[in-house]
């Protein structure tokens, strides 16, 4: 699985060394978020982080992904979860008890893009292991 994370230049240097799943939050709760499209990560980095061009490319072997506990969400389920977390003020604290949430982006529209939220210690150890290729792109 290849995915992308747009960020600031400073933060990219940090996460190339170590990804911390407790650091970030979003519409699906606490975790490290990546997405399937580079063009969306580039757009986010540029607009969120003062015209940053910094994007992390993550390459995780499919055989490793298959060993994870994955919480697969369709659009409707992800939208309900997003609303629940927002109403309960849990966007920076919630985890689902799985290693990875795999869901469409639901904050804006019926997107054709998927997002991945890495949320467990197993995921964190995996992303910081030598089996995952991390590059600036």
């Amino acid at each position, binding site marked *: 699985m290849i995915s992308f994370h747009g960020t600031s230049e400073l933060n990219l240097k940090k996460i190339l060394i170590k990804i911390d799943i407790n*650091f*970030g*939050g*979003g*519409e699906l709760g606490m975790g490290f*978020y990546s*997405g399937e*499209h*580079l*063009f*969306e990560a*580039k*757009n*986010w980095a*540029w*607009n*969120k982080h*003062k*015209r940053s*061009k910094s994007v992390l490319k993550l390459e995780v072997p499919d055989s490793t992904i298959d060993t994870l506990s994955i919480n697969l969400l369709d659009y409707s389920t992800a939208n309900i979860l997003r609303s629940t977390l*927002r109403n309960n*003020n849990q*966007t*920076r604290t919630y985890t689902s008890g799985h290693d990875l949430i795999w869901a469409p*982006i639901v*904050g*804006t*529209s019926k*997107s*054709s*893009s998927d*997002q991945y939220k890495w949320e467990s210690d197993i995921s964190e150890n995996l992303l910081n292991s030598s089996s995952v290729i991390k590059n600036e792109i």
Partner: protein
Amino acid sequence: MKFDEQIYYLCRDLNNEWNFPNEMHINHQSLGSFFVLGDIDDYLSLHYKIKYVHNDTMIDADLIQSVNNRNFYVASIPLYGDFIFLFENILKYNWIPSQSVAGLSNNSHLLYRVKPWNIDKFERVCQQHDIYFVGFANV
């Protein structure tokens, strides 16, 4: 250029309000969408402007309404061809800018969603040539 011809890039914040990304919490991830400002008469201009980045430079591209279907608009980028966007009428969305934007009132604006259509091309051109659309986000 009139600002109502601008393509905006907005995200939903923790309060479910539309905002520019630089208004969001620093560690909050919420990828946004492109929008144009609509009106209650369902009027769409024949022509808009959308910003894209190429070789570290932000450039305005013309976004022209398709002759076949008024809901589609096309940005033609020299050397790289056509990028198609679908304009969706979603009158349920309103936006009151919380930042001062030159030429834009602080009244409530109706939003029309602008979705990249041929996303395989958006992705391929980004990966191969470092071209990507960013819209206007007050950065």
